[in-house]
C-alpha cells in the first residue's frame, strides 16, 4: 500500500480521467481545443471535482509544465484585499511565453473572500483579461458578488451518483489490493454521500487496519459517527434530555470531526423514519431546512443544531401529552 493520501494519488491529471460531470468536461475540452478560456466560476459541494477540473484544464491546456502558467490561491487562507492588489496583480500583469496567450489563476474557496477583496478582484479581472483568466471555485456561488458572476461562465458541479462512486471505490481497491464487501461500499457511500474526497478518505482509513473493509469496519473505524449515533442523539432529545443530547452533538462534531452539513443530511434522513406523528415529521423537516439555510448565511453549526434538538424535545413532550 502506498504512503500518500489516496485523494492525491488518485486525483485525475487530465480531463479524460475525470469521473462523471460529463457535461462540464465536454465544455472544458472545447476550451482546450479553442485554446481560449473565459473567466469561470466552478460552484458546487465539496469533493465533486472542482479543483481537480481546474487543474486538469490547466494540464490539457499548457501540457506537462502547466505549473509554470498557473497560480493557485486559496481565498480562505489569503482572503484579504492586499493579496488581490499585489500577488494577483503581479501574476496577472505579464504575458506568458508559448502558444496560449494567457495565464490561469485558480482562486479556490472564493466564497470566503471579503466583499472588498471581491470588488478589487473584479477590477483586476477586467483590466488584465488579455493576459490572465480566472477560475473561481466556490461551494456557494451566491456568495460571489453579482458583477463578478456576470463576467464569468458558470459551471455547476453536483454530487457524484452512487454508481460512479461505487465504481471508483472498486477501481481503487483493485489497485491497492484491498478486499471490500458490498455492504462496505454501501456504508462508505452512506457516510460520504457523493463527496469523492470524503469517500477516499474513509476508504483509506478503513483499509489502513489491514482487514477486509466491511460495513461494520467502516462504522467502527471511521464511522464512530455512524447513523446509529445520530439516531441515538435524536432519541435522547425526544425523550426530553436536552442537555445529554447537546453533549452528544458536541461529541459528534468535536471528537469525530463530523461537519454540520453531514449531521443535517443524516438527521433529515432519520426524521422520516422516526416513530412520531406525521405532522411533527413535517414540522421538523421545516426546521432542518431552516438550519441548513442559516448555515449558508454564516450561522454557527452547534447553536443551530441545538435549536433543532430543542424542537425534538418539544415534539417528544407534545406526543406524550397527547397520549395522556
Amino acid at each position, binding site marked *: *500500500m502506498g*504512503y*500518500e*493520501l489516496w*485523494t*492525491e494519488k488518485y486525483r485525475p491529471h487530465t480531463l479524460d480521467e475525470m469521473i462523471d460531470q460529463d457535461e462540464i468536461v465536454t465544455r472544458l475540452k472545447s476550451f482546450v481545443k479553442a485554446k481560449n478560456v473565459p473567466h469561470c466560476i466552478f460552484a458546487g459541494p*465539496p469533493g465533486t471535482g472542482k*479543483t481537480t477540473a481546474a*487543474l486538469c484544464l490547466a494540464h490539457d491546456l499548457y501540457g506537462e509544465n502547466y505549473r509554470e502558467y498557473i497560480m*493557485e490561491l*486559496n*481565498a*480562505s*487562507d489569503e482572503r484579504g484585499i492586499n493579496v488581490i492588489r499585489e500577488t494577483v496583480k503581479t501574476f496577472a500583469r505579464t504575458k506568458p511565453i508559448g502558444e496560449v496567450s494567457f495565464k490561469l489563476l485558480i482562486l*479556490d*474557496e472564493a466564497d*470566503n473572500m*471579503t*466583499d472588498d477583496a471581491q470588488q478589487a478582484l473584479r477590477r483586476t479581472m477586467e483590466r488584465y483579461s488579455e493576459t490572465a483568466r480566472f477560475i473561481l471555485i466556490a461551494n456557494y456561488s451566491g*456568495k460571489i458578488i453579482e458583477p463578478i458572476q456576470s463576467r464569468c461562465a458558470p459551471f455547476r458541479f453536483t454530487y457524484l451518483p452512487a454508481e460512479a462512486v461505487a465504481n471508483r471505490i472498486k477501481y481503487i481497491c483493485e489497485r491497492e489490493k484491498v478486499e471490500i464487501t458490498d455492504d462496505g461500499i454501501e456504508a462508505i457511500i452512506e457516510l460520504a454521500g457523493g463527496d469523492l*474526497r*470524503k469517500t477516499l*478518505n*474513509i476508504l*483509506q*482509513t478503513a483499509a*489502513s*487496519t*489491514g482487514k477486509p473493509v466491511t460495513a461494520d469496519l467502516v462504522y467502527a*473505524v*471511521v464511522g464512530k459517527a455512524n447513523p446509529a449515533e445520530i439516531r441515538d442523539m435524536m432519541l435522547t432529545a425526544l425523550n*426530553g434530555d*436536552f*442537555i*445529554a443530547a*447537546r453533549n452528544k452533538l*458536541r461529541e459528534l462534531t*468535536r471528537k*469525530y*470531526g463530523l*461537519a454540520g452539513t453531514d449531521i443535517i443530511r443524516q438527521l433529515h434522513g432519520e426524521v422520516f423514519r422516526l416513530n412520531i406523528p406525521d405532522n411533527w415529521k413535517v414540522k421538523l423537516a421545516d426546521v432542518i431546512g431552516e438550519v441548513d439555510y*442559516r448555515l449558508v*448565511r*454564516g*450561522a*454557527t453549526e*452547534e*447553536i*443551530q443544531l*441545538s*435549536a433543532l*434538538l*430543542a*424542537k425534538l*424535545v*418539544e415534539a*417528544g*413532550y*407534545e406526543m406524550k401529552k397527547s397520549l395522556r
Partner: protein
Amino acid sequence: MSSKSPPVPWTLKYKPKSLSEVIGNEESKKKIIEWLRSWEKGVPEKKALFIYGPPGIGKTATVEALANDFNMEIIMTDASTYRTEETVRRLAGRASQLGSLFGKKKLIVFDEIDGITGTADTGGLSEIIRVIENTRIPVILIANDAWDPRFASLRNISLLVEFKRLSVTEVTKHLARICAKEGIIAEEKALKFIAERSSGDVRSAVLDLQALAQGKDRLTYDDVSWLAARDRKEEIFNVLRMIFYAKSATSAKMAVNMADVDIDMLLEWIYENIPYHIKNPPELAAAMDAISKADLYRGMLKETGDYTFLRYIIDWMTAGVAFSWSRKATGWVPFKFPERVKTASATKEEREMLEEIGRRIGKRCHLSSSRAIVEVLPYLTIILHNNPKMGKRIARWLNLTDEMIEFIMKRAG
C-alpha cells in the same frame, strides 16, 4: 449532568461558623471583639460599629460568626427588605423589647446600608441614627463605602472598622480547604490562579471554584487557565440573571450595556445556560429558537460587516430569550461557563500548531488550512492510531514534522 439534589452554593456551605474560620483582616477582627466585650461592662461610648470594605471579603460573615461565638441572636435587615423610618423603628423595638425575655443577648445589624435609597426607604437613615442614640444593645452597620456623604452623621457616632481585600495567599488557602473537604485534588497553581483573578474577593473566588471544580476529582491549571480571557464573573453572572429573569423587555436589553463582555461572548454564555434554567420543553424550544436567531444575525454581521444586524442580535439574545419562558426561578441554579468557548480557547501555541498542520496538509491536498483540519486531519488521526507506521509515512509525505505527529496523537487522546 446528574440529577442529584440541587447544588448548594459553596459560599453558603462553607460559611464560617466561628470567627477563627474567617480568613484575613486580623486587626479588624480584634477591634470588633474588643468593642463587643466592652458591652459587658455597660453601654460604651460608641454604641454602633461601622464595618466597611469592598464586597465579598467577609464583613457579614464576620458578624455572623461572631454572634455564634458570643451566643448572640442577630436582628438583621439587608437591602432585600424596605427600610423606611417605620420598619427600622419596628425592628429596633422588637430587638430591645425581647432582649430580656430570652437567654440570648441580641445584636442589631443593618447590612448593606449603601442600598438604602432616598425614595423607597424614606427616613430610613435618620431612623437608624435615632436607634443608635437610644439603644441598649450593640448595633452594627455594614457598607461598602463608609465615606458616602449620606453617612456623615452615622460616621460620627460609630466606631469605624475597615475590612481590606484579602491577599492571594489567604484566598488560595481557603480554596484549598474547600477542595480538601470536597475530595478534589487541586493543583496549587490552579487555585492561585482563581485567587489572583478574584482581586481579594473570596466570595467570587469560591463561586468560581465551584463552577469549575464541582463534580470533578481533579482540578488542574489547564482547567482554569482559559479563564484569563474572561471578564469579571459577578458582572457576567449579574447580566445573565438580568436577562434570564428579566422583568421587562427593556430591562433585558439594558443588561447588555452593563456587561463588560463582548456581545459574542455573552451570546455563548446565554446559549450554554438556557437548558439549565429553562426546562419546560415548549419554553426550551422557544428559547433555543431565540438564541439561534441571534446567532443567525451574528453570522450575517460577520459575513457582511454590516453592523445594523447588531440590534437584532441583541433583541433576540436578551428579550427574545427572556420572553420565551415564564421566568420563574426554581431554586438556585449556578451559571456554567460556555463549553464552546472553553474548547475554542486552546492555548495560542496549540492553535498555531494546528493551523500550521492545516496549512501543510492543505498545500498537498489543495485545501485551505481550516478545511484541511476539518476534512483531512480526522482521518489522518485515525490512521495514525490504527496503523502508526503507515500513518507516520503519510504524515511525512504531507510534510508534517515529528513534533506535529506527536501533537496530533496527543490531541485525539
